[in-house]
């Protein structure tokens, strides 16, 4: 809290106004509309609207398609988080050793952060496109009938790889920063006590890194939930047969092609609740880190 401030009421109100106006018009108004419309059902021609309380939600929770989307999202998030966190941790531990060229390695590993998810999807689609992809040919050479355009499991593997690839750089940078903030004296003390590199990692480094790991886990889940929309849309469109339709993609599909705005908004509201829960968890954790 500042003790010394400037006088005036009109000026600060004018300064804060643009932010508030945009926030209200493009955040609060649409968010409240989403909540309101999730209680409404519109007929096919959009002429009459009926207030139906929770019917949209009831329909949603009876819809096997919604459970499918939840399952897809769960598998997708867990696979991407495990894959990209694991690889990033391995690379960060290696880059943290006092080796020559550490700066060069860091540069070479961080740039995929700048690649748009949709573009990452195109890169991976091209490698694994069944008829012309270079790596798809290798898989076929091994006798595997690889076809992500028809096989749901293959499509899922493809989007997981693209999403994890893009996220490695982010996780790598945070793990590396976390590793570098661990006091060297702690590791030296463990070494003097006779702990070998493996033991030092699991008993000293890893526990001290766990706040970073937890933070990254939340960030990765949020990333998979929302930012991977571009990957799904560019690579699979949620198919084949909805095998890669995540919850966010379903909000988009139901509202657009199905024209089921009530249902789409009910899904939006559920997602909002999920994001708020995730953010709350993250804040609680950050509070802990400050006292840590």
């Amino acid at each position, binding site marked *: 809290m*500042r003790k010394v401030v*400037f006088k005036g009421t009109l000026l600060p109100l004018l300064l*804060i106004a643009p932010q508030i106006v945009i926030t209200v018009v*493009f955040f609060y108004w*649409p968010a409240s509309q989403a909540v309101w419309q999730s209680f409404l059902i519109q007929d096919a021609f959009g002429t009459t609207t009926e207030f139906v309380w929770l019917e949209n939600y009831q329909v949603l929770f009876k819809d096997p398609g919604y459970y499918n989307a939840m399952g897809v999202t769960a598998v997708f998030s867990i696979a991407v988080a495990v894959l990209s966190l694991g690889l990033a941790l391995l690379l960060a531990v290696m880059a943290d050793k*006092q080796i020559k060229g550490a700066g060069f390695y860091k540069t070479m590993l961080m740039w995929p952060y700048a690649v748009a998810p949709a*573009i990452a999807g195109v890169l991976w689609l091209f490698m694994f496109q069944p008829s012309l992809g270079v790596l798809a040919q290798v898989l076929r050479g091994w006798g595997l009938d690889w076809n992500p355009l028809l096989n749901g499991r293959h499509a899922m593997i493809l989007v997981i790889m693209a999403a994890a690839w893009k996220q490695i750089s982010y996780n790598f940078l945070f793990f590396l920063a976390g590793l570098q903030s661990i006091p060297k004296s702690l590791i030296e003390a463990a070494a003097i006590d006779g702990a070998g590199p493996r033991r030092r990692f699991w008993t000293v480094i890893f526990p001290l890194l766990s706040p970073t790991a937890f933070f990254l886990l939340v*960030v990765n889940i949020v990333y998979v939930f929302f930012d991977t929309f571009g990957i799904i849309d*560019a690579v699979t469109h949620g198919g084949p047969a909805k095998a890669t339709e995540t919850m966010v993609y379903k909000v988009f599909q139901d509202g657009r092609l199905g024209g089921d705005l009530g249902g789409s908004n009910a899904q939006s509201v559920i997602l909002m609740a999920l994001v708020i829960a995730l953010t709350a968890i993250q804040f609680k954790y950050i509070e802990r880190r400050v006292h840590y």
Partner: protein
Amino acid sequence: MVEQRPLSKFVAHAILVAGIVIVAFPVYLTLIASTHEPADIVNGTMGLLPGHMGVTHYFDALFSGTKQIKSTPVLQMMGNSLVMALVIAIGKIAISIISAYAVVFFRFPFRMFFFWTIFVTLMLPVEVRIYPTYKVVADLGLLNTYAGLTIPLIASATATLLFRQFFLTIPDELVEAAQIDGAGPMKFFRDIVLPLSLTNIAALFVILFIYGWNQYLWPLLITTDSGMDTIVYGIRRMIVTSDANTDWHIVMATTMLAMLPPVFVVVVMQRLFVKGLVDTEK
């Protein structure tokens, strides 16, 4: 100093090189494909070495786009992306820095209420309110305009919080000294606060430029006129399921061009990028 085993260093180099190869391979392959004859790509006979069509393909992509599926010239799409990225980055920084300045350096009615109003939006990505937001933009008549593409994405709790955090570290003595010298709030902002914030602004700019350039869902909703396509979204329109109709050589050149500006920014402004990344995630 902890003991270093020679073998462990060798393993570290080997793993890092393998990591770089995995990370770079998709892009390398795309670069190679962009230089080969379309037939070689479609038949899968292009191999792993560069072809000789690079200049032609990039020229075609930039000035005419794909032919089989008519697309906007890539140069025009890059222009749209550049406008979008710059307006979002500069706009976000501008409105966040003045609102943070108001919250920190003044006392006015409902100050904390306004602060929390901004703060709560931290939790609401566009993706959770797709159609209602679309409707607002449509009602305001902003579909297929730069304003519709950028303004809704300009409000940012993250940037406001970041500036607030930084402003709180400016010592009271500095404000007092300025007041004694007769400087008003706007002069203090221009001559003291703004220069002090330059590093923060630059770091934030790097992150927000990438954020703006890489938008996908928003252009997908707001633009129906292909002349307004951004490159990241426009590339999606170039790819069709029946791959005989996809001009893969142009798509690959476009992919490279879509990555170029943001990757360039990250590599050249590495220090600012890392600072921005860490700052915005606090």
